[in-house]
Structure formats: C-alpha cells, structure tokens
C-alpha cells in the first residue's frame, strides 16, 4: 500500500488538505455571515437571527439551502461564457489565496504516508508567499469586472467599472504598504516574516509598532480591495441596486458572497501575520502560565454553553449545545493533561484568535461607518493613501539604513 501510494503521496495529502481546508473555510464563511448579522444586529440593538436553531445557529444552513434550491435565471443578452466565468473566477481566486496562509510553525508530530504535514497547504519554504498572495488578489478584480460587464445591464456595468477602478487604485497602496514589513523581514516568505517578529518581549516585537503607518494603510487598502464597507461602492444598494452581482441569482450569487467573505478572512490572516506576529503569543516566552490561556478561555465558555443549552425547550438545544459545551470542556481539560498538545495548540490558537479579532473589526466597521462617495474614494486612494504608504516605505528604508534592521 505504501509502496503504491508513496510516489503520489504528496498529491494525495495535498488533495486531502485542500478538501479539509475548503470545508473549514466554507463553514467559517457560513458562520461568519451569522456572526456578522448578530453583531450588526446588536450594534443596532436588535436580536438578529434567532429563529432557526438556538441563537439562529442553523440560519447559515438555511441560507445555504435557499441558495442551492432557488431558481437560477440567466438574463437575456448576457455574454454567457463570461457570465458564468466571472463568479467561478471570483470564488476560485479567493479560495486559492487562503491556500498560501501558513497556520502554524511546526509540522504535525507524526508522519502520514511518509510525508511531514504542515498546517497550511503550501510547504513553509515558499519564497514568494506574499507575492503570490498579491498576485492572486490582483487577479481578483476580474471576477467583479467581468461580472459587471457580462450581465449586459447598466447597474452591473457601472459596478464593474467602479470596482475595477477602485481595485487598481487601492492595490498600489496595498502592495506599497507591505513593503515596509518586507524590508524589515527581508523576505517574502510568510513564515519567515512571522518568525522575524519574535522577541524576548513578546508583543513588542510585532511589526505593528515600527510599521503602524504601514498597518493603517494596509488595512484601509485591504478593506477597499475586499469591497467592504465603507468601500463597498461596487455593490452600493442605494445607488446601483446590488452593483456587479445584480443580475446574479442563487448559487452564482452565493459564489460572489463566499468569495467576499473568504477574502475577508484572507485579509484578516494577512493583517495578523504581517503586523501582529502571526501565531506568536503577545507574552514573553518566559511567562509559561500564558500557555494555559486556551484552557482558561475554553473551560468557562464550555460550561456556559452547556448551561445555556439546558435552558432550551427544543430537543436540539437540549442535546446539541450541551454536547458542544462538553466537547469544549473536555478539550480544555485535555490541554491541561497533555502539555505536548497544549504547546502545539498555542500557535494556531493565537493566530485564529487574532484573525477573529480582525473579522470582528470588519463587522464592526460595517455596523458603524457610512459609505464614501466615489470621488472621495478615488481622491482618498490616490492623494492620501498612496503618498502615505510611499512615505512609509521611504522612512522605513532610511531607518533601516540608519539603525540596521529595527529592534
């Protein structure tokens, strides 16, 4: 068996990884929508979804089903090929970008089919990680633009035009704002960039401090790249109905939707990795007690979930929630019992929690900020963001010239 498999082991492993990641990402997407609706609702002092399942936890499923089974009309006079291509393109690119993110430093302690398994699809020694990521984001614009054009309808066309212009404009700022980090790390490799941020003082080593300006630019540009509020002009309901995907229904629409949320996740990952030390703990490595933070967080959460579930009348609530709670508690205890696992968990834990924070910020912004006017958008991009990021690059390079690599 091994003898037969081993030549193609890497292939098989990769495929499995991809499927796994795909599943995870899609689920996260689904619950991201739920999360977003909830948070926005609470920001606007509403309840948000709470009918389908406890706390509306099953809402995403329902939505998914709805997307799948809705009628899928193709408008007359569309350019069929492009019309179908566009959402595929968008989704594929968005998902691909995730594949480049490394989720942890060390491989799994045991080999499968004689292969060391890294957390993340690409092996960590890819020299052009960040570049590849930018390449993919750069292509991302086509999904929107083509969608807008191919629908052969006014609003989508305008949306497409807007988004392509916007994306080109902000891509410059996006790329430039990262250059500072690259200069400091001296590498495109994401893993190296993260490792470069390790220091005796934990959080103080992160790039956010030397690269605060860069971070601001990066984050704003990234939000614009993902067409999120306050830069969601391509799909500005009030002006363009639904922008580039006006003419798309059911699952094609879902593709755009998923693509958008996936790119949100990607951007959050990038923020975490580039500026917030990726999977590094904010505390100095000497504070060993911080290793128990996951447990400390998981245990009460699990207990709360159990208790909350028991309050439900429905079977579902009575059964599922306590189950989940129990799992969480067990996991917490296991972490205490097996320090090896605990140590291994640390990196992903911190990375995921940072990503979560950024996702929350996304939602938060959506809940609070108004949308920009188009000319404001352009002016801001070209006259504010770009110069600032360039300045950042210059300053950084001079600083490096002066003091050598910072910290």
């Amino acid at each position, binding site marked *: 068996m091994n003898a037969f498999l081993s030549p193609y082991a890497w292939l098989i492993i990769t495929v499995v990884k991809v499927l796994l990641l795909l599943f995870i990402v899609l689920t996260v997407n689904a619950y991201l929508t739920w999360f977003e609706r909830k948070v926005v609702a609470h920001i606007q002092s509403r309840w948000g979804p709470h009918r389908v399942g406890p706390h509306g936890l099953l809402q995403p499923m329902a939505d998914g089903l709805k997307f799948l089974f809705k009628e899928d009309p193709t408008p007359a006079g569309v350019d069929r090929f*492009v019309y179908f291509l566009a959402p595929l393109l968008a989704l594929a690119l968005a998902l691909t970008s995730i594949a480049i993110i490394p989720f942890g430093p060390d491989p799994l302690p045991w080999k499968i089919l004689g292969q060391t398994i890294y957390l993340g699809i690409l092996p960590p020694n890819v020299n052009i990680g960040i570049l*590849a990521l930018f390449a993919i984001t750069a292509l991302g614009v086509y999904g929107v633009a083509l969608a807008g054009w191919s629908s052969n309808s006014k609003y989508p066309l305008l949306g497409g035009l807007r988004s*392509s212009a916007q994306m080109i404009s902000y891509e410059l700022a996006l790329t430039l704002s990262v250059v500072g980090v690259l200069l400091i790390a001296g590498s495109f490799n994401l893993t190296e960039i993260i490792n470069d941020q390790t220091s005796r003082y934990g959080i103080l080593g992160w790039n956010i401090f030397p690269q605060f300006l860069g971070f601001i630019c990066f984050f704003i540009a990234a939000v614009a790249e993902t067409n999120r509020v306050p830069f969601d002009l391509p799909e500005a309901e009030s002006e363009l109905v639904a922008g580039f995907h006006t003419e798309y229904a059911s699952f094609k629409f879902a593709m755009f939707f998923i693509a958008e949320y996936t790119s949100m996740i990607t951007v959050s990952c990038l923020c975490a990795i580039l500026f917030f030390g990726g999977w590094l703990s904010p505390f100095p490595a000497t504070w060993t007690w911080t290793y128990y933070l996951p447990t400390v967080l998981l245990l009460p959460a699990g207990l709360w979930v159990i208790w909350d579930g028991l309050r439900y009348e429905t079977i579902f609530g009575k059964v599922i929630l306590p189950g989940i709670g129990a799992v969480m508690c067990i996991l917490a205890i296991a972490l205490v019992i097996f320090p090896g696992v605990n140590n291994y968990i640390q990196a992903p834990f911190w990375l995921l929690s940072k990503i979560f924070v950024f996702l929350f910020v996304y939602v938060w912004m959506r809940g609070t900020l108004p949308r920009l006017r188009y000319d404001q958008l352009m002016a801001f991009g070209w006259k504010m963001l770009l110069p600032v990021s360039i300045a950042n690059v210059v300053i950084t390079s001079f600083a490096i010239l002066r003091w050598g690599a910072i910290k």
Partner: protein
Amino acid sequence: MTASLIIFFVLAALAVGGALSLIFQKHPIHSALSLIVVMVALAGLYLLLGAEFVAAVQIIVYGGAIMVLFVFVIMLLNAGIEEHTNFSKLAGFPGLLLAFALTGFIAATIARSTDTVQAAAQPGNMASTKDLSTMIFKDFVYPFELTSFLILVAVLGAIVLAQREKA
C-alpha cells in the same frame, strides 16, 4: 517524460491556445481574457524556470494592472464585436504569408543559434530575489532610474491625453 515536462507542455499548450483564441475571438473582451490566460501560463513557465519573482511580477503587473486597464477601457468604450472590414489588400493573404515567413525565419535563426545555449541548459535553480534586487539596484541602477522617469512621463501623458478639454 518527467512531471516538469508534462507541466511545461500543459502550460505551453495553454499559452498557444490562448494566443490562438486571441486571434480568433471576435470580441475584444474575449481576446483580453485569452491574453490573460497566455500571461498566467507564461507566469507558470517562469516558475518552472525558477524565476519566481518575475512570475509574480508578471501576474501582478501584466495580469493585475495592464490587462485590467485593457478590460477597463473596453468596458468604458463599450466596444462591441469588431466589424470585419477588409480595406487593406496587403493585410490579406500576403500578410499571412509574410507573418509565417517571419516566424519561420526567427525560429530558424534561433534553432541555428541556440545549440550553444543547449549545453548550458540546467535544472532551474531558484534565483533568489535578493540577487535580482542587488543586480537591479547596483548594475542596472541607471536604467532603473530611467524607467521610473519613463513611468512618470507616461502618467503625465496619459492624464493630459485622457482628460476632456474643458470647453
């Protein structure tokens, strides 16, 4: 028939196919898409050749900027199917002939001249981006500066050209 050779042929096929469809597509958007395909395939080839940075730049600049610009302009001008006029006698059959002649000629020339290169053909060792950058900023610094100037000029020119003159 190693894996890399397979990949090469796949990519090459992609590139040629893209180029062909660039020619035969009637609608500029489709041509643009085919061209993008060609470019992505080329990027893959660059990766195969061990030129990662060039590959990335190829996609970012060509795919992400230039072609987007093309698509953008096509959308802006709302260009339709290109009309099939034939005012130029020369661009008919003789043009075809000449184009083939040129291609053959170049191919022959290369075939003649690359046997020297052949021997040197080696497994593509990944050229580190650092070396590239040092080369650009040391040996090629003047060309580099010149190109930056060129870009500046181009930007100004584009602005001047594209702005509607205020009546």
